[in-house]
């Protein structure tokens, strides 16, 4: 069966520090991968998605970047965090099939202070 791992679960970082969030998927190959951000009490905002190794599409211009160094690994990064980067970050995957059902990780709560 397929599983998705996302870590860390919580992170407190000072303004101006770097960021690296990692997401890995097991039990499937060539998944589409997604990074979302969720503000408190709000819906999901798509940040990046990837259909293959090294292929990254950015949805929203911002202080963040994403990379996909391996088929089932998706990394969200920042060189210098801003206060506005605080939020709940979710990684998700799908098979790229017609239905587009996505499977989510447990999320990372990021607080930038």
């Amino acid at each position, binding site marked *: 069966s397929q599983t998705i791992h996302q870590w860390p679960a919580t992170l407190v970082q000072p303004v101006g520090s770097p960021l690296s969030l990692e997401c890995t998927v097991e039990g499937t190959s060539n998944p589409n991968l997604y990074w979302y951000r969720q503000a408190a009490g709000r819906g999901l905002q798509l940040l990046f998605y990837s259909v293959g190794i090294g292929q990254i599409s950015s949805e929203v211009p911002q202080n963040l970047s994403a990379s996909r160094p391996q088929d089932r690994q998706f990394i969200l990064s920042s060189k210098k965090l801003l206060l506005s980067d605080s939020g709940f970050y979710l990684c998700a995957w799908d098979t790229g099939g017609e*239905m*587009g059902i996505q499977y989510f990780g447990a999320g990372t709560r990021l607080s930038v202070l």
Partner: protein
Amino acid sequence: SQQGEEDPQALSIQEGENATMNCSYKTSINNLQWYRQNSGRGLVHLILIRSNEREKHSGRLRVTLDTSKKSSSLLITASRAADTASYFCATASNTGKLIFGQGTTLQVKP
């Protein structure tokens, strides 16, 4: 931009009552999905309804879709305290990406 608008934003009911949430969207879709999110956790897929379907059932869940009105509803029957969560609709189109609504927060009181 978010396509889905959900109504109500928050809903509080007693255990055993039914809960109804609505979702409206703007563009044509291939399917509409509903997800559940427990507090501080990831989303879990509940049910999918295709654009050519009008109603679908899964256990205590009933979803309807009206493509002429660009709207959907999720009904949870005989609610339980464990149903307390946020519920999101998401639309899938030819872009291959999902667009999520803002969600409805459901509280079921025991």
